[in-house]
């Protein structure tokens, strides 16, 4: 096996995506421009224009068609890619369910962005959270390097015959999509291609073996076909870990399904996802210096939800503060991950308190000081034994 040679490049997460897609030798890219995803597709266009990637670029007239075209391409066996954000992801929504329902291993990246109205181009996770039940495997990265690595892993996961589900890799719009970080990319992409070999693992439209894809299923059949997706998600959970471990052995970087930061001896755990975890880590270091026993937990895998790892990590803790950057309007616990965590913890005999906090909506700045103040508030609630059973909307002018 050839040894990988890394090249250290200054890349933002959007460019990291483009490099990963190129290194995976993707066949068909169908995408529509939307801020802050746009430079992913611009970079890929450059790669194709310069002959660095042999792919068909379909300049579709909408995101709906982007995913539709990806579905068509994947259905004849092509490795496909698309990328979007916010309104684009909403416009695709119908196709999300069909891509997974047809069991096509499409990979898509999301530079997360707040939803209209009012229109906002800035980051939050309300777009991603709306896709929760679309049966897509969903990874949320927190650095440009992780974005690059996750896109590569995504193809391995999606195309695994035990899985055959589409995969989304999400990361903060602007905060990550437009921030340059040093990223190691393969100088010899053949090595990456070895890691994600071309395998015919899914049913395709082939004149030599005609099949019918996407028929109409009545009540006698629909349920069983959808149950297959339930099982595929369960299988995916194992495969995601396997692939990440193998990636680690091969390339020296792995991420797990959750990332822990100084939680072993912590009483209080800050749980979040995406680029915000960087701020959280800094805040933890500062608070630790002040003697506060706080640690951090980052959700890297959102679907399938890493329930066991989460339960294991919060066991024995006093308080979990969940920092969500999305709102489930009308829910008492309106942070989607807080809600998920609480339902996951329901059967635990001794469970920590949970404080649901909404932050960073429409990219309202979240500073280390905010994190420290939120932690202090959580500790106060804990001490007074009155952790509220409803979400705190941090920083809203009231």
């Amino acid at each position, binding site marked *: 096996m050839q040894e990988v040679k890394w090249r250290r490049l200054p890349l933002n997460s959007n460019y990291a995506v483009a490099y990963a897609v190129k290194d995976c030798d993707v066949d068909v890219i169908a995408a529509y421009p939307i801020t802050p995803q746009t430079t992913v597709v611009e970079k890929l266009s450059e790669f194709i224009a310069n002959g660095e990637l042999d792919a068909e670029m379909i300049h579709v007239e909408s995101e709906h068609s982007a995913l539709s075209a990806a579905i068509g391409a994947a259905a004849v066996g092509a490795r496909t890619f698309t990328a979007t954000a916010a309104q684009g992801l909403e416009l695709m929504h119908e196709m999300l369910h069909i891509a997974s329902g047809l069991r096509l291993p499409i990979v898509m990246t999301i530079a997360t962005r707040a939803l209209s109205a009012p229109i906002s181009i800035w980051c939050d996770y309300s777009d991603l959270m709306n896709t929760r039940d679309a049966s897509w495997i969903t990874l949320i990265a927190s650095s440009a390097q992780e974005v690059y690595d996750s896109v590569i892993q995504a193809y391995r996961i999606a195309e695994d015959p035990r899985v055959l589900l589409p995969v989304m890799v999400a990361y903060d719009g602007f905060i990550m999509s437009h921030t340059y970080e040093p990223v190691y990319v393969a100088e010899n992409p053949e090595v990456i291609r070895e890691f994600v070999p071309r395998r015919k693992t899914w049913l395709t439209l082939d004149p030599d073996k005609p099949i019918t894809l996407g028929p109409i299923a009545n009540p006698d059949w629909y349920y069983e*076909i959808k149950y297959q997706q339930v099982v595929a998600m369960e299988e995916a959970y194992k495969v995601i870990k396997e692939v990440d471990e193998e990636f680690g052995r091969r390339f020296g970087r792995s991420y797990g399904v959750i990332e822990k930061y100084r939680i072993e001896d912590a009483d209080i755990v800050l749980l979040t996802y995406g680029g915000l975890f960087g701020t959280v880590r800094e805040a933890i270091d500062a608070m630790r210096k002040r003697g506060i026993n706080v640690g951090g937990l980052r959700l890297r895998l959102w679907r399938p939800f890493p329930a066991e790892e989460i339960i294991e990590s919060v066991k024995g803790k006093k308080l979990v503060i969940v920092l969500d950057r999305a709102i489930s309007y009308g829910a008492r616990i309106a942070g989607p991950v807080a809600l998920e965590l609480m339902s996951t913890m329901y059967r635990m005999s001794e469970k920590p308190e949970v404080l649901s906090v909404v932050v960073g909506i429409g990219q309202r700045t979240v500073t280390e000081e905010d994190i420290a103040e939120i932690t202090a508030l959580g500790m106060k609630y804990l001490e007074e034994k009155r952790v509220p059973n409803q979400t705190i909307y941090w920083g809203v002018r009231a």
Partner: protein
Amino acid sequence: MQGKQLPKWNEIPPGGAILEPGNSVKRPTGDWRTFRPIIDKEKCVRCLLCWVYCPDAAIKIIDEPYRTASGKEWKFSVEVDYTFCKGCGICVEECPVKAIEFVEEVK
């Protein structure tokens, strides 16, 4: 329960794909018919219009020689495939020599 005879979730191809091309032939539609077209091979001029216009591919071309009572020799004939004929009557209407009768189905 009908459900008991149907395949389990893991016996169905992923995503509900159908792997057997054209297996709808296992689901005859002949019982839809209330009227039955009957081709008179004597009158039939073998123009194939019934075969062309049939929406259900329910007109069969039979490659067997046929000699009419008046001595006309045909290399083939057409027959209605009653397994699938839904009895729409297009063939009856489009036959240029009125060689197809349309009779009510009786049990």
